[in-house]
């Protein structure tokens, strides 16, 4: 048996790879298929996936350098169109699709980009109600950013002049579609914001396809609106068009004309308020005068005003009652004092020694001192007996 020199695995794979790489048809392929086994390598950021249809599947890889440009998040089950080349991964001996670009099939790529940006800005808080500025009730300067040639500016000017000609319109023409649209709109918004050239700002354009309106879905425009110091009313396309700008703006108007309606009050309403205010003033003052007149009337018809003598009488009566009270108080006090004196006198009388003597007692004194004990006297002492009606001299005999 002849044994031709055996090939190494590497040689085989390298050979096959060279065959495939040389095939002009496989250098640039566009493949439609459904994503499965999607993996986003956590470290390298490369995407690994399988594209399949009903009967067959092919391995695919999209390196991070390419997938960074994607405007959507690939997911299992998603129908996509992938652009790339077929080559062999010689380490594993498998051929695979090296994807350069990929877009969702059947679902507008722009739509996905839109959803993606919307989600991102929402999470960042650019749509928060708390950040939205109040639209002034009576702006004297209305800023307008739109195309100088479109129908939008005409509509806006028509409505503004009909509703509130008092307000000055400060206009800045911009490109509203094409590659320069977004930067042009951003510049205009920033200019208004920096110079505070208006009290409220309308930013928008008339209707068009989703591509035409695209500038208003761009991140830089959204951020300029968010950062604008002047309240912004967005007015893009028709009622049914919702752009990212609409979500960021302080107020969304369905159309440019509607934006103008929302921006300013109707001068006729103001006029009727002013007329009613004037009528109110007249009524209010008339009412006030009537009130004051009534007050005076009430005063004039009061009792004391009609019969002042009544008032004097009542004062006199009061005075009388005071006098009477005063007199009786003095009388009472005198009587009490008189009574107290009489009782003192009778007490004094009861205590008097003369009273005792009158009942037959006599008081013995010796040299004017009262003798209260027999032992203080001896035979021959001279004493005085004091009776109620007089004194006698005596001598002690034993």
């Amino acid at each position, binding site marked *: 048996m002849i044994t031709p020199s055996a090939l190494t695995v590497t040689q085989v794979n390298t050979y096959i790879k060279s065959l495939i790489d040389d095939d002009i048809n496989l250098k640039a392929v566009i493949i439609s298929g459904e994503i499965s086994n999607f993996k986003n390598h956590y470290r390298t950021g490369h995407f690994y996936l399988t594209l399949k249809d009903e009967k067959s599947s092919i391995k695919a890889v999209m390196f991070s350098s390419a997938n960074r440009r994607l405007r959507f998040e690939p997911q299992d089950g998603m129908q996509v169109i992938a652009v790339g080349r077929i080559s062999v991964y010689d380490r594993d001996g498998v051929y695979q699709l090296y994807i350069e670009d990929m877009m969702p099939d059947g679902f507008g790529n722009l739509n996905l980009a839109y959803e993606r940006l919307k989600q991102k800005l929402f999470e960042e808080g650019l749509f928060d109600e708390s950040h939205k500025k109040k639209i002034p009730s*009576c702006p*004297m300067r209305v*800023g307008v950013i739109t195309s100088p040639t479109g129908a939008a500016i005409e509509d806006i*000017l028509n409505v*503004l*002049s009909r509703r*509130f*000609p*008092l*307000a*000055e*319109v*400060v*206009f*800045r*023409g911009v490109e509203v579609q094409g590659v320069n649209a977004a930067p042009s709109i951003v*510049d*205009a918004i920033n*200019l*208004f914001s920096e*110079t505070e*050239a208006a009290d409220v700002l309308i930013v928008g354009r008339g209707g068009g396809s989703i591509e035409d309106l695209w500038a208003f879905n761009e991140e830089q425009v959204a951020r300029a609106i968010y950062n604008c110091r002047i309240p912004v009313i967005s007015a893009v396309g028709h009622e049914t068009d919702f752009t990212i700008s609409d979500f960021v703006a302080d107020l969304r108007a369905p159309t440019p004309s509607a934006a103008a309606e929302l921006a300013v009050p109707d*001068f006729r309403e*103001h*006029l009727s308020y*002013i*007329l009613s*205010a*004037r009528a*109110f*003033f*007249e009524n*209010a*003052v008339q009412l*006030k*005068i009537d009130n*004051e007149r009534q007050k005076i009337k009430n005063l004039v018809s009061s009792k004391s005003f009609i019969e002042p003598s009544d008032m004097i009488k009542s004062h006199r009566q009061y005075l009388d009652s005071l006098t009477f009270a005063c007199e009786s108080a003095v009388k009472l006090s005198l009587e009490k004092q008189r009574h107290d004196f009489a009782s003192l006198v009778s007490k004094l009388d009861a205590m008097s020694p003369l009273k005792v003597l009158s009942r037959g007692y006599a008081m013995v004194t010796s040299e004017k001192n009262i003798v209260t004990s027999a032992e203080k006297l001896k035979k021959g002492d001279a004493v005085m007996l004091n009776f109620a009606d007089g004194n006698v001299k005596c001598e002690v005999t034993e």
Partner: protein
Amino acid sequence: MKNMTYEQALEKLKNTVEKLEEGSLPLDKSMEFFEEGTRLASFCEKCLNEAEQKITDLKVDKKDD
């Protein structure tokens, strides 16, 4: 009142109405507010009736510095 904008006059007019609505003002004060309010109302009305829309282009004002 000559230098007042419509916006300022309207604001003042509203305040005047509020003050008069309170009703507790002395008569002479009421008269003052009445006169003031009537003047403001006339001024505002004149502004509205004579207004003509003014449109200016916002120019990029490249500063000299």
